[in-house]
């Protein structure tokens, strides 16, 4: 059993507060991603879990047992670093066997020359070599075992770093932006491999990234962080469709969510000349932000449904789908619309002049001045925002 429980973690570096009362509960075998802009404290959480940085307050439990007093190696967690952190002067095989050597040989047996005198050492080393071989075969790096890290490509180093963390069968894998040094194509490939690996090992993964695509595609649950706090914790779908906070709505989704400002009235929200019939929980006359995902806008406004007037500024053709960039007629605010290629072709001539874009009000997300969700659909979002 290796569920992980963080309670009230806080950490400051000098006067900067990096972690602010973070509590988080990760289920056994879960793939949980911490996502956020750089400097939001996500990597610090990993280092605190690993025992590499002491927290100022709060506690870490792994498998129901507090590990606060344990040294990094006693916590039985493995970490994969962004720079891979391979030992530069050791071969791939040596790199991968190090965690086991440190675990199974005592201090005297590990000494460079004296250690060789121990009869136990040879037996243990043979066993380790066999295990390293097995893991290397799983990762398809058995041909690289004699090479030095400098002779490997980025993807190969990545696999070696993974292998080094796998050999000791840790309770928890901690991954600190492991894919961000790879090129785009390899990154997509390694994403699939990592999720596959997670499924095969069935161990808890805590994955840190600033890339919302990685967070969305790989995780069981995602915790979005900002300024040392968890803003929202939920499934990728929750975060996309039901963000509890404007920061979450902006961070998740590509292309980014459209934000237009409007004013609440008794009947709904007025955006320019259009009136969107959305009920909100705040009083009339307030300025709010209306978030519209690119697929909540359409080129075919249905009569009687709300629409906004906009002018086409730019077209991004991705082949199967097209991103159409508009500017709102009244305010000039930018809007992105996701359309199929067929839809775009059908409306092409009409798009030369200003057009009316249909707004699907049921999918609109409304946030008040402080960035909190205020539309009625938000109740569900507020519930998942509170960590268990």
């Amino acid at each position, binding site marked *: 059993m290796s569920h992980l429980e963080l309670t009230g973690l806080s950490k400051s570096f000098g006067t900067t507060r990096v972690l602010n009362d973070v509590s988080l509960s990760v289920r056994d075998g879960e793939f949980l991603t911490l996502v956020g802009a750089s400097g939001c404290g996500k990597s610090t959480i990993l280092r605190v879990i690993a025992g590499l940085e002491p927290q100022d307050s709060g506690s870490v439990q792994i498998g129901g047992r507090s590990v606060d007093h344990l040294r990094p190696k006693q916590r039985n967690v493995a970490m994969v670093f962004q720079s891979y*952190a391979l030992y530069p002067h050791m071969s791939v095989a040596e790199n991968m066997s190090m965690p086991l050597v440190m675990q199974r040989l005592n201090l005297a047996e590990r000494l460079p020359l004296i250690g060789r005198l121990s009869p136990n050492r040879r037996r243990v080393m043979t066993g380790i070599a066999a295990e390293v071989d097995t893991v290397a075969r799983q990762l398809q790096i058995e041909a690289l075992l004699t090479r030095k890290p*400098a002779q490997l490509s980025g993807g190969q180093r990545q696999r070696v770093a993974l292998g080094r963390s796998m050999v000791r069968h840790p309770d928890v894998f901690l991954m600190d932006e492991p894919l961000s040094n790879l090129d785009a194509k390899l990154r997509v490939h390694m994403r699939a491999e990592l999720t596959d690996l997670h499924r095969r090992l069935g161990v808890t993964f805590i994955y840190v990234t600033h890339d919302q695509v990685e967070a969305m595609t790989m995780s069981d649950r995602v915790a979005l962080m900002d300024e040392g706090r968890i803003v929202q914790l939920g499934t990728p779908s929750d975060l996309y469709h039901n963000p509890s906070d404007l920061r979450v709505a902006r961070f998740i989704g590509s292309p980014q969510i459209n934000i237009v400002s409007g004013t609440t009235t008794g009947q709904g929200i007025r955006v320019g000349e259009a009136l969107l019939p959305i009920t909100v929980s705040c009083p009339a006359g307030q300025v709010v932000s209306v978030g519209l995902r690119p697929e909540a806008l359409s080129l075919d406004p249905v009569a009687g449904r709300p629409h906004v007037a906009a002018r086409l500024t730019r077209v991004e053709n991705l082949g199967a789908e097209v991103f159409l960039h508009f500017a709102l007629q009244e305010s000039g605010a930018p809007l992105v619309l996701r359309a199929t290629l067929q839809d775009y072709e059908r409306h092409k001539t009409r798009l030369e002049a200003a057009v009316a874009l249909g707004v699907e009000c049921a999918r609109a997300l409304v946030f008040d001045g402080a960035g909190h969700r205020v539309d009625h659909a938000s109740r569900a979002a507020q519930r998942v925002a509170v960590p268990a």
Partner: protein
Amino acid sequence: MARAPLRTDRLIGSVISHFFLMLGAGFILLPFVWMLLTSIRPASEVFTAGFNPIPSSFAAGTNYSEALTKSPLLQYMWNGVLVCAGILAVQLLVAIPGGYALAKLSFRAQPVVFGLVLFGLTVPVQVTALPIYIALANLNLLNTYFAIMLPFFLSVFGIFLFRQFFKSFPQEIIHAARLDGFTEAEIILRIITPSAVPAIAAFAVFSITSHWNDLYWPLIVTTSADHATPPLGMMIFRDQETGSNYGALMAGAAIITAPLILVFLFAQRQFVRGITMTGVK
């Protein structure tokens, strides 16, 4: 591949810069050249007026054999090797862990300790000479190798140099090592030291050169030829019989300089190797 023709202005620039570089090199090398030339001259030609690089008669054989036979030059050099090796070994033993602690560990006294290291850099060896001499004299340790080595065991320069070098060592590798179960001593021994080969080579050149050439301290603590280091030996050699035989004296000087040049050439190769080895991102 076709080489682009060198443009005239770049050619002139290159000629000028090479001229100044060669001038500088010549200025620095001149004493060595003079030493070598004197070492192959007969005594009669040493003080002739005018500058004639090629002597009219060669006396290399007599000069060098006189230098080697009339003084225990090999004994002096062996003393030099022992003293330099002893000093360097203890210096590395202290400076590598010290530099690591100052660069990578955070403890409350760290700024104070680093401040003291910087302060130590400004204290010349002459300042502490008298108290150390008195202590050694009271302990009856004068005229020993230990006495010659003692003041140099702690090299604040070494600590500073290694601290600067380790500052740039990736913190993530140290974190990985701690997670893998390395103790701090093992991190120093198995991770940090192998990566510090270029720094060790550079420091070794500095340390060996200065202690091989040091005359001041050996002159204070030794009076016997048994423990004399090469420069002190040269002095004893001059005082004794050779007196005015500058040819033999220069031959001796050439012999005791040769190991330094070898050490430097060896360290230079290590240097390049070390740099390519750490070319890991």
